[in-house]
C-alpha cells in the first residue's frame, strides 16, 4: 500500500466513526480527571472533518491536512482543538509538495505535528498528556524508517502499538498540564484522555493501511 492522498482521506474519514464509537469511553476517562468533554469534542471535530470532505476534495495531502486543521480549530471547542489543529497545520506544512509519502516522510510529518503540540501546550514528556503517546509512536516510526524499504502498513501498526503502551503508561503519572493538573495527586491512577485519543487516531490509521 502507498501513503497517497487516498490513504489520508480514508483515514480521516474513518475517524468520525472511531470517535463516535469511543465517545463515551473518552468522556468517562475525562470525567475522572478533566471536564468530561473530550469524547464529545473529538466526535464533533471529526464529524465536521467528514462533512468537509463530503463537500470539498483537496488536491494534495498538504491541502487535506490544512483543511483538517482549520476544521478542528473551528469546531472542537476544548483544548484538543488548538492542539490537534496545530498538529495538522504543522504536519500539512511538512508534506508540502509531496504527492506520496515514504516512511521517512511520516517521521517528518509526525515530528512537525508533535512540535506544534508541544509548542502550543508547553507539555513535557511525563506530564500525562497526549505527548506521552506521540513520543513512543514516533520512535517506532523512526525505527521502521531505518530499515529499508520500510513498509507503511507495518510502520503504522508499530506506531499504534507504541502509542498504546505510552497511553497505558500515563496511568501512574500525575497530571501537570490542563484541567487534570488541578487534581494534583488525585490524577494518579487514571489514564489520560488525550493520550487515548492519540492512540485511537494512530490505531485507526493502522487499520486503514492494513485494509487498503
Amino acid at each position, binding site marked *: 500500500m502507498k501513503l497517497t492522498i487516498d490513504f489520508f482521506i480514508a483515514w480521516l474519514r474513518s475517524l468520525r466513526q472511531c470517535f463516535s464509537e469511543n465517545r463515551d469511553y473518552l468522556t468517562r476517562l475525562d470525567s475522572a480527571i478533566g471536564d468530561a468533554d473530550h469524547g464529545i469534542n473529538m466526535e464533533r471535530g471529526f464529524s465536521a472533518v467528514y462533512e468537509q470532505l463530503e463537500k470539498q476534495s483537496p488536491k494534495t495531502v498538504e491541502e487535506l491536512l490544512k483543511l483538517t486543521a482549520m476544521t478542528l480549530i473551528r469546531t472542537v471547542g476544548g483544548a484538543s482543538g488548538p492542539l490537534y489543529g496545530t498538529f495538522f497545520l504543522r504536519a500539512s506544512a511538512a508534506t508540502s509538495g509531496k504527492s506520496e509519502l515514504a516512511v521517512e516522510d511520516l517521521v517528518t510529518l509526525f515530528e512537525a505535528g508533535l512540535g506544534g503540540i508541544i509548542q*502550543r501546550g508547553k507539555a513535557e514528556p511525563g506530564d500525562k498528556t497526549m505527548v506521552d503517546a506521540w513520543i513512543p509512536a514516533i520512535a517506532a516510526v523512526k525505527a521502521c524508517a531505518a530499515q529499508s524499504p520500510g513498509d507503511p502498513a507495518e510502520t503504522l501498526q508499530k506506531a499504534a502499538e507504541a502509542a498504546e503502551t505510552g497511553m497505558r503508561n500515563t496511568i501512574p503519572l500525575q497530571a501537570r498540564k490542563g484541567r487534570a493538573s488541578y487534581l494534583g495527586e488525585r490524577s494518579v491512577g487514571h489514564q489520560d484522555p488525550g493520550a487515548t485519543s492519540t492512540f485511537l487516531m494512530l490505531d485507526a490509521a493502522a487499520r486503514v493501511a492494513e485494509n487498503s
Partner: protein
Amino acid sequence: MVGLVIVSHSRRLAEALLGLTAQVCPTPIPVRVAAGAGPDHAEIGTDATQIVEAIQEVYGPDGVVVLMDLGSAILSAETALDLLPDDWRKAIRLCPAPLVEGALSAAVQIGSGQKLDAVCREACRALDAKLVQIEPEPPPPSVPPGALESLFTVTKPHGLHARPAARLVQLIAGFRAEVYFRRPKSPGSRVASGRSLTSLVTLGARQGDVIAVSTSGDDARQALDAIRDFLRAELAEEELAEPSQPQFEAGRPFGALPLSPGVAWGPAYVYDPSVPVVDESAADPDAEWTRFLKAVDVAKEAIRARAKSLAACAPAEAEIVETHLLTLEDPVILSRMRDSILASRKAAGWAWGNVIDEVIASYESLEDPYLRQRAADLRGIRTQVHQALTDKTDSRDDFARALSQPVIVIARESSPGLIAGLPRRVLLGVISVEGQPTSHGAIIARSLRIPAVSGVPASFLSLGPETVIGLDGATGQVWLNPDAEEIRELGRRKGESTTSLEARPPGPWRTRDGERLEIAANAGSVEGARVAALEQAEAIGLLRTEFMYLNRLEPPTEQEQIATLEEIAAAMTGRPVFVRSLDVGGDKPVPFLPRLPEQNPYLGVRGIRLSLRSRTVFRHQIRAVLRAGAENDLRLMLPMVSALEDLVRSRAFIEECHRELLEENLAHRWPIPLAVMIETPSAALIAASLAPLVDFLSIGTNDLTQYTLAAERGHPQLSEYLDSLHPSVLQLIGKTVEAGHQAGKQVGVCGEIASDPVATPILLGLQVDEISIEPAAIGTISRVVSGLSAEKARDWARGVLKLATAKEVREASAAFASAV
C-alpha cells in the same frame, strides 16, 4: 483606540461581561466577544477562528488586548495569533489578567484613550483589589516633592466607589500630570495612583473620610482644578447625578472658542506628545550638563528651522517663534539648571522639568491674560528640550511623515510650534483643548489661514482616526462625524468664506496672455475627491489609491475598488481622474504584500517594483480601473518607474488584463490613457524613451527631489537640502517637459512644489502643461496664474536654470513676481 477581545468558554458568560463593562465605560469602545463552540457557539468551548475574526474586527493602529478565561481559551488565542499576519502580532497582547476584573479595568483604560501596554499593565493589576484584602499590600507609589495638594472630605454615603472612581480615572487620563490620592488622617493608608481604577477603589475612602489629592507635572494646576470640580459635584451629593453624557451629539454642532476663521472638515488626528519619564539623579553631573547643553542646541536648531520656514509667508510670526530662542538663552534659567545638575546632581530631564515648570507657573499666575498666554509657548519648549534629551526625533516630524492625507489636528494646545511646524498640505484645521485668541498659536493660524478653534473637552484627545470632524473657525462650531447634510452645509460655508476672502476667477484658468495652465487636484480618498470638485479642480491629477489598501488584512476586492473609483468619478462629474497604481513600500507596509526587510526602503521594492512582484494584487487593481473606466474618464498612472523595462512590462501586463476582460466579456475602457510618473533622475533623463510609450508624463517632485539631492524626505536634519526649487531638480523638470513635448505628449507636475506660489512662474516658464495640487491651494495658485504672462515667464525661466542654489532661485522668483 485599543481594541478589546474577550475569549471565554461560555458565550453567556462573555456577553454578561460585556454588559458589566458597558456600565463602567460611558463611551463605546471597540470590543468583541469570541466565546463558545459548535454551531451557534452555544456549547462550552473556544474557537480559534472566531477569535481571529474578533481580532480582525477591532484591529487598528492602536492594537488589540485579548483577555481569556482559562485552559483552551489560552491555547485557542495563541492559535489565533498563528493564523494572523506576522506583523499584526506585535500589536496584539494576550493579557494574563483575571477575566472579569481585567475586562472592567481594560474597558476603563481603553475608554480613556490609554495605549496598548498601559491597558494591559493596568488590567493585570486588576487582581490587586482582592490581593490587598488577603495578602500584604504592594509597595505604594510615592507623591513627588513639590506637588500641588488639596484636601477633600467625602460626603457621599457610598464613598469613593467603583463608578465615580472610574470617572475620575477617565478625567485624570485627560491630563499629563501625575495624580495621587491618599487618606492623610489614616496612618498606614496607601498612596493611590489616579490612573489606576483598582488603586483608587482600594483606597477605601468612605463617607466622612478626608482624602488628599496631589498633582505634579506641567498641567498639575489644571488637573487639580478639574478634579476639584468633579469631587465637589459628585462626592458631595447623594447619588442623584446621572453618569455624564458625552458633551455633544452627532447632528448638533459643539460650541467652541473661535481662534482663526475658515471652514474645514476631514479626518481627526490627535497630536499628543508625551513628556518622557526621567530619572531623578545624575551619575556624572559634568556629562549630564554637557548633555543638557547639547539638547538645548538641538531644540534651538529646530526652532530656527521653524522660524525660517515661516519667514517667507508670515514674517511677524517667524519673529514670535524666534523669541522662543531667548527662553533657551535666558541666564536665570541656565544658572538654575547649572545649580540643579552640577550642585544637586539631578538628572538633566528632571532638572529641566522642575526649572521650566517654575517659570511656567510664574507666567500662569500673572494678571495680564496676554502674558499668561506665554505659558503655552513655554510648555512647547519644555517638550522640545525633553525630546532632545531623550534623543527622540520631534514627534511632529514622524507625525507629518505618517500622514498620507490632510487632517484636522486635535491637540491639547494650539502652540505656535505645532501649527508652524506642520506642512500646510497636511493641516486642514486645528482643534485644541486649551488656547486663547491672543495666543501665538492663534495668531499664526490666522496669518496662515488655517481654521482653528479651542476649548473642546479633553475627551476629544481620545478620538480615533475614523472620526470625521467639521469646524467653522469663524463661529467656533465643531461637528463630530457630520452627515451628508452637514457636509453640504460646511461646503456652502466654505464656498462663502473662500469667495468672500479671496475672489478668484472660475476655471479653466489662463495666464494674462491667454495661455492655459491646467490646474488639477491631488486626492487620496472619496472625501478628498469631493473637496477637489468643490474647489473646481479641472481634474484629479493624482489619485493616491493607498487609502483602499492600508489598515486591512486582505486586499480590497475588484468590486470594492470599482465601487470606490466610480464614487470618485461621480464626485468629479466627468472630469478626468488619474488613478495612480498602488504606491506602497518604503515607509508604508501592507500586511498582505509580504516584503523583505530593507536597509533603505526608499531605494527598495516600492511603487511599480512592488506591483510587478505582487501580480494578484496588481491584476485586481488594473482590472478595477479598466472596468470602472467603462463609463468614466479614468486614466492609469504608474509610480516609481526608473527603467524602461518596468514600463514595458507594465504595459504588457495591462494589455493582458484587457485581454482577460475581453474574454470574460466585461465592459471596460480600452485603450486606457496611460501616464508615467517621473520621480527618479533616471526617468527624467530617459524621458524621451519613455514618452512614446505613454500618453502623459507626470513629474512627482517630492521623490524626484529626494533622489536628486540624496536627502531623505522628512529627515529632520536635512530640510535645508530638500528644496524642490533646487536648480538640479528644475533642470530635470525642464528636460522632461522638452522630451514629452517632442513626442507630442503633455507633461504635468504633482508634488508639493506645484502648490507653492513661488514655484508657479518657474513651472509656467518651463512650459509645464498641468499642475496637480492640494485642493486648498487652488484659490491661491489660480490667482497667481491669472496674473502671470507665459511669454515673459518662459524667457525668464531660461536664466533661472543657470542658477546654482535653491536660495537664488527663490530670490529670483520673488523678484520676478514683484516685477509683475
